[in-house]
């Protein structure tokens, strides 16, 4: 896939301390393995690179809409509700509707629970941009403060 970035997306990626090459790598890996979410118009892919999990949102023509990251390591999904809220995402490799679920998150040796988009079939989990850049980022900050 020919991965393309607008200037504003390039700038955002830079501001978030991410590398263009890593984003390209994430998208190529997702495209070759088919491990990604798709909502009919865009894809969400992720990859752990070093100490962060990086996400890319891109359309089927390779135009990157955004990229972001979190430091927490996602683990198993946790069974909570019998009636999970639906999402617009489909897990492409399972062809399964993804839902809002709960996933184990580990940071600085501490494991807790957090919300994520999950595929109940393969057990994979993805964090959407608003959560990664706000709630999860604030949680990482609190862990750092409380562990200090």
């Amino acid at each position: 896939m020919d991965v393309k970035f607008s200037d504003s997306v390039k700038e955002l990626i830079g501001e978030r301390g991410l590398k263009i090459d890593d984003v390209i790598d994430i998208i190529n890996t997702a495209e070759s393995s088919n491990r990604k979410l798709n909502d009919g118009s865009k894809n969400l892919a992720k990859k752990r690179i070093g100490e962060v999990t990086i996400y890319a949102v891109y359309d089927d023509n390779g135009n990157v809409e955004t990229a972001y990251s979190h430091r927490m390591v996602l683990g198993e999904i946790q069974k909570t509700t019998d009636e999970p809220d639906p999402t617009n995402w489909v897990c492409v490799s399972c062809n399964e509707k993804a839902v809002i679920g709960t996933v184990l998150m580990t940071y600085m040796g501490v494991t807790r629970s957090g919300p994520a988009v999950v595929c109940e079939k393969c057990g994979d989990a993805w964090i959407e941009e608003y959560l990664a850049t706000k709630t999860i980022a604030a949680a990482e900050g609190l862990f750092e403060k409380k562990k200090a």
Partner: protein
Amino acid sequence: MGYEELFPPYDMEWHAHSTRRFANPFVDNKYDRVDVDPVMLSHAAVACGYTIRDFYEKPELGIHCLAHIYQLYDLLPVTHWFYASPWLADLGCKMVYKDTLPPIPESEILHEPGDVDALHVPSPEELYDGWTYSQYKRLYAYVQKNIPQTFVPISYGFDPVGEAAALCGVENFIMWTFVEQDAAHKLLEKFTQTAINGALCTAKDFGSAMLVVASVLANNDIFSDEAIREYSVKYMREYIDKSFRGGAGPQIFYHCCGNHETSYKEFQNLIWSPFTVLHIGYKGPEAFPSDLLVQEYGNKATCMGSVDTKLLINPNPKVVYDASAKQIIAGRDAPRGYILGTACECPPYSLPGNILAMTRAAKDYGTYGKW
């Protein structure tokens, strides 16, 4: 004279100790002992010689009383002042202050199911200068100036079912959940969206906001498990989800007081964040057993156990001590930590000897390395 002149200097040595202790449940530390949080509000004002009304009418005084009493009782290093019935004034209620109660709406403002349609949900911009949030702006400015070490930005969705019922009358609301379900849901939706807009104000000003949301009126004394799922848990979820989308969180305090005899299982349907505390008040007439709380929720949240609030006004500290010890022993091994609380807000006229019996039990039965 500012209210800060009424209090001795804050004890920073105690603060360092209690801050380290209060980190325990959130980052798996084992320092000192289990914390005690008797869900204190106007008791702190009463204990400093002021009234319940003072606590609510003068937020800066109220929160400084809390900071002072928390040190003396060896409780938490943070402060939280709660404007009872948040957002009701913004939705059109005239709030009246009472000498012996938190402020309440003068009367319900919705009389017929059809009235719900006309209820206006204030935007974040409208709420920002509205009744409820203005008090928090004042309050938080005071805390940041005078006792900044205790500051946590908090936004209260509080009890959606209880607030909705206050808007239309409790009997009406209960009736609507049977015969006018669309109106009941629409009203809950409107209150919840207002509370979300309030949380967005806090998130915008402070970059985060601890979210406090409750299921109080929605308990098994009044509602079935199904009704609690449909009318309470659903809107608690929505409050958290949409507040997160606007940058509030990551901390959540779920306060489920009242009798959750069987409805306690419904809280599985809530949203969990890495900094979530779950508190359940009663199971039938008894304080909710901490072993059951930990068994059901210990792998999702920090568990907050309960001592029956009635015991705190009963002149018998030994009974409080024994009840505290029993809950601590049952809860202290919770995988994500345990906090000893009271089943609901500790009564304004709680006896200091009883609250001190709780911290004494925490020391005797909740000191790490002693069991």
